[in-house]
């Protein structure tokens, strides 16, 4: 597969590789894809109290395009609000990386990953609002 410069750059120097604490209430984790399909992306975002994505990390099992798509995504979502991040479309990623048609599904996976991460974070926040917070729990004891 002959790749463009941007894919190769992200593949050779992936940005923001790593993991955040998935149990942290400020962290949203999106894991999409399947090993049997040849690609799995894990994207994590850390959201500040102001609702900004202050950190993003990824790990990806997959081809060069899948690695590049998720690496690019972590760069793009940093500093964005959840709403802004949720607006990133796979076509933006495919265009930026000049992905060949056969690799478009890698960018789709990246879009799925950020949405899953946002959903995970929002779910945690909703549960936190419903549940008594730790201070109340401490008082009850």
């Amino acid at each position, binding site marked *: 597969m002959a790749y463009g410069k941007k894919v190769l750059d992200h593949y050779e120097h992936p940005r923001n590789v790593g993991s955040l604490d998935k149990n942290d209430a400020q962290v949203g984790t999106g894991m999409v894809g399947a090993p049997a399909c*040849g690609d*799995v992306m894990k994207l994590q975002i850390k959201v500040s109290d102001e609702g900004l994505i202050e950190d993003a990390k990824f790990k990806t099992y997959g081809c060069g395009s899948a690695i590049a798509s998720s690496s690019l995504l972590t760069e793009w979502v940093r500093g964005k609000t959840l709403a802004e991040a949720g607006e990133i479309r796979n076509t933006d990623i495919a265009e930026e990386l000049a992905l060949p048609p056969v690799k478009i599904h890698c960018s789709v996976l990246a879009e799925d990953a950020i949405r899953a991460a946002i959903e995970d974070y929002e779910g945690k926040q909703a549960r936190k609002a419903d549940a008594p917070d730790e201070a109340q729990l401490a008082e009850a004891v």
Partner: protein
Amino acid sequence: MNDINLPIYLDYSATTPVDPRVAAKMRQYLTPDGEFGNPASRSHSFGWHAEEAVDEARKQVAELIGADPREIIWTSGGTESDNLAIKGAAHFYQKKGRHIVTVKTEHKAVLDTCRQLEREGFEVTYLAPQANGLLDLEELEASLRDDTVVVSVMHVNNEIGIVQDIGAIGKLTRERGIILHVDAAQGAGKIPIDVHAMQVDLMTLSAHKIYGPKGIGALYICRKPRVRLEAQIHGGGHERGLRSGTLPTHQIVGMGEAFRLAREELAEESARIRALRDRLWNGLNQMEEVYLNGDLEQRVPGNLNVSFNFVEGESLIMALKDVAVSSGSACTSASLEPSYVLRALGRNDELAHSSLRFTIGRFTTEEEIDYTISLIEQAVQRLRDLSPLWEMYQEGVDLDSVQWAVH
């Protein structure tokens, strides 16, 4: 390690370079000062000399597989030989029956030819190999019917390098009067072949897998018992009417010389290549979660097919810019399907996606193998650091228990 020329070629099953000794011989059959004549020209010495060269090459090819020169006809390569053998025999013997037996791990030149025959009304049984790649002979025997006319089983598999027990298969087919076709493109010149001892009726041979030129192959057609074929290419009646078309003398001479060298050097060369292959496997096997695909013992010396779990094959190939290998990963294919050969072995898709095929040959050195091992160790480590699956594995998560959203 300064004496290594990069990139390193470890894809000898895809093709081989022409041996310089072969190229030197071929050059004598092209230019005005050489023997450029048409071997079919009977009226002058240009033709006679070319015909002599073709006859000599036919003898050299026959000798490698224990055949008679009259049992060899020239084709354009392995694909054409497979087509001529299977279609030719199926068409000729169709009054006797219209059932064909082959194996799921055959080369596409065999599988697609069988598909075409299915469209013509033939029935084809595609046998699944065992987990080590080898055919279960009892299963093969059970598949044979009164109307079975052709069985096609490859000698050496191109992806995993395993060697089928052709002699045992030949015994089953010969006693039933069924034609046995063997695609030996990957086996000839690498392991000894005796078509008569193995009771093979038709055998596909290719030049460019054993240091001959591309674009030339041959088909062995057994004389005793006599095997008949219906021609697929019609014209001037060359090759006893079985394959018309002017014989490419330089290609044929190249194939003959390549087969002569292969025969003379087979024992020594296969021992050397096997040692290099074992060195590579011992090096790679030092890493965790590395799996060999296909049987190690019943295997051609130069082949190593390995899955690096939790690393996707295409991304690994990208990291190995300086090593030419091929992958069973979907992402290196246009179809996005992982290797059908590895899937037929029952390997899970993850391991098929994570596989690399290394094939070692005549010009591979020990230094190249050692360099390759170190490059792969670095690349696998780097990609595992990037892999969420590796992370989960390290945390003790059973990946099979995860509900993946298959897309």
